[in-house]
């Protein structure tokens, strides 16, 4: 837990990523016919759109992880929360509709999934805060429980680990463009999370709860409550991410192997480490990882036979390289520690 200033490189990378995204979006939105759009033909509107869709689970997991860890509870169970919400969204939408959900039923499934994820995060919070569990081991347990429960329940409901396919959420139809609902939520959530963390009293409490809980306690704020809200927010955001993946893009729950989430929660963790606990930076990193994924899909479509598994390891390798060489992110001082209020 050595102290290190957020490295300049890191800020630069995150900032550049955000700028590029913003510029591309602006070009794409306002000057679809412009030469710039032509120059970046490989990175065209569809490409950005698919990157944004691929970024949804990663970015939401990252946002959630930021709130939990900044408040002092390291939640490495984000992957499990994504699995739970992806499963619940499909299970609820499929079951209440008898297999062919309407848009309304999909949305019911969506919010049920967010609720399931929040409840699961609550369990994690109780275990960590009330019963003082080792956060790393408890987070691992959250992941492993989800990895067991979701395929188990899939078999109970559908007789196999994969669900039958269902429809996906309709795009919002704005005046000038159509947008995927989870993507819109992500684009709202990222600046909202940044604002909450940096411009509100709640954000300062979260910060203090992770850095110096004693000081927070001294000024009369309940550290437990702040940590609970941090963890519950991680459940909320992961819920949006998992349901957004399942209902916004895939339209199915796949429970084989590492499940359809296949490590996106872990990439989310590394995204926020990469972004140094800044929601904007974390989003930039998520966008970067998703763009690699999209590039690989695009190259395959164009007929280049690059094994997708090989491209698939790039985010993980990037993360290791970043962790080791670019910047040692500084985790909050009290993260991982239990806090017992002095009065008790």
């Amino acid at each position, binding site marked *: 837990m050595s102290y290190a200033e957020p490295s300049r490189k890191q800020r630069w990378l995150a900032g550049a990523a955000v700028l590029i995204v913003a510029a591309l979006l602006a070009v794409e939105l306002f000057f679809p016919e412009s030469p710039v759009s032509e120059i970046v033909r490989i990175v065209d509107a569809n490409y950005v759109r698919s990157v944004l869709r691929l970024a949804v689970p990663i970015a939401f997991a990252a946002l959630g992880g930021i709130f939990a860890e900044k408040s002092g509870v390291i939640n490495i169970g984000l992957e499990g929360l994504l699995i739970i919400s992806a499963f619940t969204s499909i299970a609820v939408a499929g079951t209440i509709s008898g297999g062919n959900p309407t848009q309304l039923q999909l949305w019911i499934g969506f919010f049920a999934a967010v609720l399931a994820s929040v409840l699961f995060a609550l369990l994690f919070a109780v275990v960590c805060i009330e019963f003082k569990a080792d956060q*790393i081991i*408890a987070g*691992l347990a959250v992941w*492993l*429980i989800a990895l067991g*429960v979701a395929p188990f329940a899939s*078999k109970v409901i559908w007789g196999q680990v994969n669900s039958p396919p269902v429809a996906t959420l309709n795009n919002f139809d704005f005046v000038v463009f159509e947008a995927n609902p989870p993507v819109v939520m992500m684009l709202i959530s990222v600046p909202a999370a940044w604002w909450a963390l940096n411009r509100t009293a709640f954000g300062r409490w979260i910060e203090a709860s992770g850095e110096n809980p004693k000081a927070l306690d001294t000024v009369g704020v309940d550290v437990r409550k702040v940590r609970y809200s941090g963890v519950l927010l991680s459940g909320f955001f992961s819920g949006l991410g998992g349901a957004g993946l399942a209902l916004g893009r895939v339209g199915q729950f796949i429970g084989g192997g590492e499940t359809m989430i296949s490590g996106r929660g872990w990439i989310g963790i590394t995204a926020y480490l990469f972004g140094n606990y800044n929601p904007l930076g974390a989003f930039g990193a998520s966008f970067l990882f998703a763009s690699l994924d999209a590039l690989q899909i695009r190259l395959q479509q164009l007929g280049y036979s690059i094994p997708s598994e090989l491209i698939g390891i790039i985010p993980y390798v990037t993360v290791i390289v970043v962790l080791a060489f670019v910047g040692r992110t500084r985790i909050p001082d009290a993260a991982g520690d239990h806090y017992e209020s002095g009065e008790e």
Partner: protein
Amino acid sequence: MSDSSGDGRDTPSDDSESWQDRADRALGRLVDASAAERILISFAALGLSVVVGALIVIVSGWVATCDSPFVALAGVGSFCYDPISVYRVMLVGAVWPPYNFAITLKETTLLLFTGLSVAVAFRAGMFNIGTQGQLLLGALGTALSVLWVAPFVPVSVLGGLLLIAIGLLVGALIGGLWGALPGALKAYADANEVITTIMLNFVATGIAFTLVSEVFKDPQSQTVQTRSIPAFAQLQAVFFDSTVFSTFALVGALALVGGVYWMLNGTSFGFDLRTSGVQPDAAEYGGVDSKRMMVSSMTVSGALAGLGGAVYVLMVASRWQTGIPSLGFDGITVSILAGNNPLGVIPAALLFGALKTGSLAIEFQLAVPKELVGVLRGLIILFIAMPEFFRMVGARLGLGDERRTVAADGGETGRANDGGSETDETTDGTTVGDEGGDER
């Protein structure tokens, strides 16, 4: 557990000697004190997992549809699965018929390797979640090396032994190298090993898949797998007429448990390893190069995982193929259940091996999904992570007064000393003790 190994070093003649002596006594006391409560925690966690697992079985039986529910309540619905018979079938199915017992022993053998792997890293204060990746690459190394050497070796028992030896060696070597990587990243670049080992699992999967699908693929096969290793290079069954279990492998794995126990408790390397796990600063003060210790403990851990992969290839699969079971993650459960004690790994691996075989039986006989064992795996880890919970439950059950005194005692005399000596008889004896201790 007789962990107070360094009793011999009792000549406080110079500084380092007396430091070692003191640290060793403290370490021994800590482990002795925590051994009893760790066993209690493990049993309590296991029991609670069984209860919660039963609830999940009941609820899922309510969701599932079936022809003959075991109980139907008016207004509530019908329940398809009877948890008691689920557990009964699970336990019986783990040992009977004999073929199932062979599968249980197969799982046990493999879990001994991965359980030991996680335990060794844990003891050194490192959390190796990368056992799965180390096992996967070790298995690939074994398969390829055996395939490569096999043509130059006579088809005989001796040739088979040679191939097996080469396979085990290469598996351990590759696993060890892959394990050394996160160790070095932690030691020299301060990269959190929890994150890097998880990442390296995905990287290992991607590399192995790509290598096999692009270079070493069996041309006869549709799926991504290597050619099969020759039959004479496979570990032979002895007592069981089984194609997946070899008594040699089990005996070897048990010998390895003894070896690791001796390494941890009888060698100076093991002493340094344990001290850096419990008291990194003290270890550093006592002259242990903590950076080198991180790398070497992770190398040993990875080598054990790689051996597990080698045995998987030589005994079970006879080739590398996609979809290697999650032995590495189960190894985490086994090690945590065993309190990270090498000897404890034996019953924990046996129990978990039995659960895995039993899960096949419940799916086959009762149509209860075998993934139930995955749920139990997670629950066990969750409950073991929260010793405080059992303490509170104990206090709530009316054993509170006794407990509070003990807890207060412990609080005052320091964490290492408040072991469960007075409270061992009951499950609530799972004192806070060393919750940080050697877990992290």
